[in-house]
């Protein structure tokens, strides 16, 4: 199972409070998020788990400001590193997406532009706001030069380059040509760090020339390029087969510790959560029903839905066939009243349809939203 939390217990990178969201469709209004609460600490790998349609991707889109035009946020805050993301102007939001938040999606084939090379799709990131990347690019190159210079014969050209780069770092000024060169070398080293073979070649290739796993690594490299505070990973392993899945997850963990990024890992697969996450939140029909550290959740699931989820996972060590949760996911056009899970809950009683349970702490770091435990 996963390692324990690596943070020093610092501030929350992300804090979502009572976020409510609905979609205006021609069939009516879909209540997609019903007041969710979430917080992710610095450097934490946080899992968000739930069935399809429960609102996990929508949450990520809301954080990144990428909601479609027919979405309306009807309440709540999304605080990223102290700033309320929902109150940002579009241009500020764009810069936040460039520097603070990075998002990786499920199917890298459709999320990469088929007619542009990998390299150009990476280079355009620094070209968008060169000023923001000058330090990163120059520092990276300086480090490269230092490594080479330490060897026996210091090259005159390298020393000269180091001088001019240091000067550029001080003045925060970089020419277009130097920017492109530095971007290229930085991007290639990132491609190497995501364990892509022959990164220089990959840089010049088109997306359709790569396999699914390779494309996903490219997406991760593109995200890492910005050194974001928060990485949103939306079902990134769903389209990959199991062996590649494991590699990508391992990569994610390593990168997280290298750059100390927080990761919100969205998935419907509990096994993934078990493998890499520090904490996990369980989501159902637009609500967060339980939040706990991963070990705690698997050892001691509280919410009936969580219990149902865990029971439905096939296990090789038990002889019985997995149970399934009765019923099906509710239609969010007219969701069930009160606790949205009550129609399928084996433990439902009179209070459940009448009002929504609030989230309470049953143990330190273990929250649940169910009338069975108060709330």
């Amino acid at each position, binding site marked *: 199972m996963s390692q324990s939390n690596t943070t020093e217990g610092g501030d929350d990178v992300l804090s979502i409070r009572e976020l409510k969201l609905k979609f205006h*469709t*021609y*069939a*009516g209004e879909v209540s997609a998020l019903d007041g969710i609460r979430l917080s992710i600490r610095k450097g934490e790998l946080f899992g968000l788990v739930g069935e399809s349609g429960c609102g996990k991707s929508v949450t990520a889109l809301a954080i990144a400001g990428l909601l479609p035009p027919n979405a309306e946020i009807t309440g709540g805050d999304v605080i990223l590193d102290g700033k309320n993301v929902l109150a940002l102007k579009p241009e500020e939001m764009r810069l936040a997406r460039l520097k603070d938040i990075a998002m990786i999606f499920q199917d890298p084939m459709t999320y990469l532009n088929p007619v542009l090379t990998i390299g150009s799709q990476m280079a355009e990131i620094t070209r968008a706001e060169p000023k923001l990347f000058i330090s990163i690019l120059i520092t990276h190159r300086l480090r490269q030069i230092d490594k080479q210079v330490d060897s026996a014969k210091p090259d005159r050209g390298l020393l000269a380059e180091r001088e001019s780069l240091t000067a550029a770092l001080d003045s925060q000024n970089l020419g277009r040509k130097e920017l492109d060169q530095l971007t290229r070398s930085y991007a290639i080293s990132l491609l190497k760090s995501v364990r892509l073979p022959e990164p220089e070649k990959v840089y010049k290739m088109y997306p359709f020339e790569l396999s699914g796993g390779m494309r996903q690594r490219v997406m991760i490299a593109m995200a890492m390029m910005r050194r974001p505070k928060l990485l949103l990973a939306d079902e990134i392993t769903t389209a990959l087969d199991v062996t590649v899945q494991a590699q990508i997850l391992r990569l994610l963990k390593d990168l997280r510790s290298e750059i100390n990024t927080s990761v919100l890992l969205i998935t419907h697969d509990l096994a993934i959560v078990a493998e890499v996450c520090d904490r996990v939140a369980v989501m159902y029909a637009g609500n967060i029903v339980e939040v706990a550290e991963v070990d705690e959740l698997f050892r001691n699931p509280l919410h009936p839905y969580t219990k149902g989820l865990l029971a439905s996972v096939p296990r090789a060590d038990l002889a019985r066939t997995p149970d399934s949760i009765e019923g099906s996911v509710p*239609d969010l056009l007219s969701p069930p009243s009160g606790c949205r899970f009550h*129609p399928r809950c084996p433990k439902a009683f009179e209070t459940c349809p009448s009002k929504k349970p609030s989230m309470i702490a049953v143990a330190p770091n273990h929250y649940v939203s169910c009338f069975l435990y108060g709330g």
Partner: protein
Amino acid sequence: MGQTEKNSVKSRRQHSELRFALHLLRQNPIVMAGLVISVATVVLAILSNLLVNGAYWHQQELTLRLCWNNPAFSWPVTNLFNCAGQVYPLGTDAYGRSLLQMIILAIPIDLQIALEVVASAVVIGVIFGSLAAYMGGLIDEIILRITDIFLAVPWILLAIVLIVVLGRSLTTLTLAVIITWWPWYVRLMRSQVIGEKEKLYVERLRMMGAGWPRILFRHVIPNSIYPILVQSTLDIGSVILTVSALTFIGLTPNPLLPELGNLSNQGIQYFFTAPWLIVFPGLTILIISLGFNLLGDGIRDIFDPRLRR
């Protein structure tokens, strides 16, 4: 979820589909306008003989030619000839006939030619397109190459050559326009049938021993013909454009014929003395073709699954 709940969800979804379609229609006043115009055109065509004497266009009143006496507005023409007698709302043409009455007479004639063209193009297109698609191989190649040849020429040149060679008559005019349109319909039908013949029921019919004519004519064609019919109805406006372009350049069977392009031909000859002769017939063509095109756009938008939310 109980059965009744499931049913109510299902009926709510169907209800919402219809509501969605109506919503789009209501949201789009332009499409509604298209519908109104198209219907109005057809109605006007049917009623035209009630409004104007059908033999009106044979007469000529040369003392009244090219005159204008509608007080509502005037034309910046140096010697505007004023008509004697009754008010001609749209002036008179080069033969002294009321332009308004000529236009009313012209609409059914143009519409009729357009219908003939469209019907013939559909028949040709359906036959050759479905044969090409269903038979495949050499037949497909040949038919495709032939459409290529026809599409490699600007249509108007082909039409000119044809009318020159065959003489000027309503039949050759219709034929010339059919020659222009049939390649599109062959291709359209062909792509429809290519998709249709891959479907499971065709395989099943073949296994049951049905011969290809039966499969083709009884099943495949009726199932794939719907888009062609929609397209053809909406092409009526564009066909009128084509026909009037040909008569405009002078390839008309009879210079007296009440036909919108024909009237415009007079208009360009007498442009500096009677500009109304080209303005109003052309405007009529514009409105008719706009009506059908708007309608077509709207229907396509509503039924295009990709554009739905």
